């Protein structure tokens, strides 16, 4: 894995903790947290604060018989057994889940100049894609004007002045027509490409 050069903003982590991020941005955050202990610790603190908000918030009484219904329901609910540890792949678990394995499982499609991409299945508020950019190729302009959050998974990435190697990165991009409001103010990309 590459060195973490940028940390996630508190704003982005806050939205992730609150469950407000489109799935594609949530995926980039989850992959980053899998690789960055510092951001994970901040993220856990923000979840703890969410727990405190829930616990100290207003308790609205449940309907009559709610406890009885819940207890009756337990009979039909099996308690799940302790899960076996998941098989590790070469990529962080949240990403492996979306590509169905490690990077070898990715079905790349060429987008020209040797650059390949694979769109990952997420909700339509934003889109997530893997990009594979060969060494020596100038950074492609994929003509996107909205917010973008990009995480380098493998290789080096430089914005133009020299060193280029094969670079594989994960990028979430806003779907401008579908999502307004919060995201433009969360803009803190790792790299803009």
């Amino acid at each position, binding site marked *: 894995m590459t060195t973490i050069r940028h940390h996630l*903003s*508190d*704003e982005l982590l*806050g939205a*992730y*903790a*609150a*469950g407000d*991020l*489109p*799935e594609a941005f949530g995926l980039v*955050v*989850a*992959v980053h*947290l*899998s690789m960055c202990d510092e951001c*994970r610790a*901040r993220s*856990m*603190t*923000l*979840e*703890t*604060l*969410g*727990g*405190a*908000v*829930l*616990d*100290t*918030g*207003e*308790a609205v*009484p*449940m309907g009559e018989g*709610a*406890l009885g*219904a*819940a*207890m009756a*329901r*337990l009979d039909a*609910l099996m*308690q*799940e*057994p*302790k*899960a076996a*540890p*998941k098989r590790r792949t070469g990529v*962080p*678990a*949240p990403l492996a889940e*979306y590509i169905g394995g490690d990077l070898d499982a990715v079905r790349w499609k060429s987008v020209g100049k040797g650059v390949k991409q694979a769109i990952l299945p997420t*909700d339509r508020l934003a889109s997530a894609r893997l990009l594979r950019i060969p060494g020596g190729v100038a950074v492609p302009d994929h003509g996107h004007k909205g917010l973008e959050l990009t995480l380098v998974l493998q290789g080096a990435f430089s914005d133009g002045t020299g060193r280029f190697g094969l670079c594989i990165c994960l990028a979430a991009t806003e779907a401008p027509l579908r999502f*307004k*409001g*919060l995201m433009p*103010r969360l803009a803190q990309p790792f790299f803009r490409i």
Partner: protein
Amino acid sequence: MLRISGMMFDAGTISQTGGRGEPDHYVAGKATNSGVGRQLATNGQEADWAACMLRVRDHGDRAAFAALFNHFAPRIKGFLMKSGTPAAMAEDCAQDVMATVWQKAHLFDPAKAGVATWVFTIARNRRIDALRKSRRPEPEDLDWGPGEEAPDQADVYAAEEEARELGRALQALPAAQKALIERAYWGDRSHGELAAETGLPLGTIKSRIRLALERLRREMGRD
């Protein structure tokens, strides 16, 4: 590990929130045989939810589950209603969340998160599923890897203790600041909408949230 820096997220209107609701009622009669009766008889703030959760996880203890249900279900319902969920749907979701607490009890690890934190994450995910028909990717599990010792018994409840400390600090905030933080978690409201609702400029709202969090950090004594 608790660290609250100048985080920012979206928030709703600034307003006073409701009280803590009715005191909890426990099924004390059912609980006395389970050995958690003493804990269940105390009030909600001091009850040992982690001990209840471990009894659910390790023994399928129904009395412990009932105690958790009585405390958390109304709070989940209240939380979801604040998030804009209609009452009937919030009630159903609270039932679902508690069912998940039972089913996925094996995932509860007191060394990683307190019970309120864990319940919050389940409720939040249920809301994403119910309102947006979407999901939230989770980071890779942190396992106690080979060569790493599981935490000492004394450290097992550290997460619960920290969560309580944070809860007390949140309660100690001035009402308007507490409300700002709460609304950030109720979710799906942009600063822009808040600006429109209150007539306050965006910059003012953001700096007020920042002030609230700075104060919270001071309350925690972790400057």
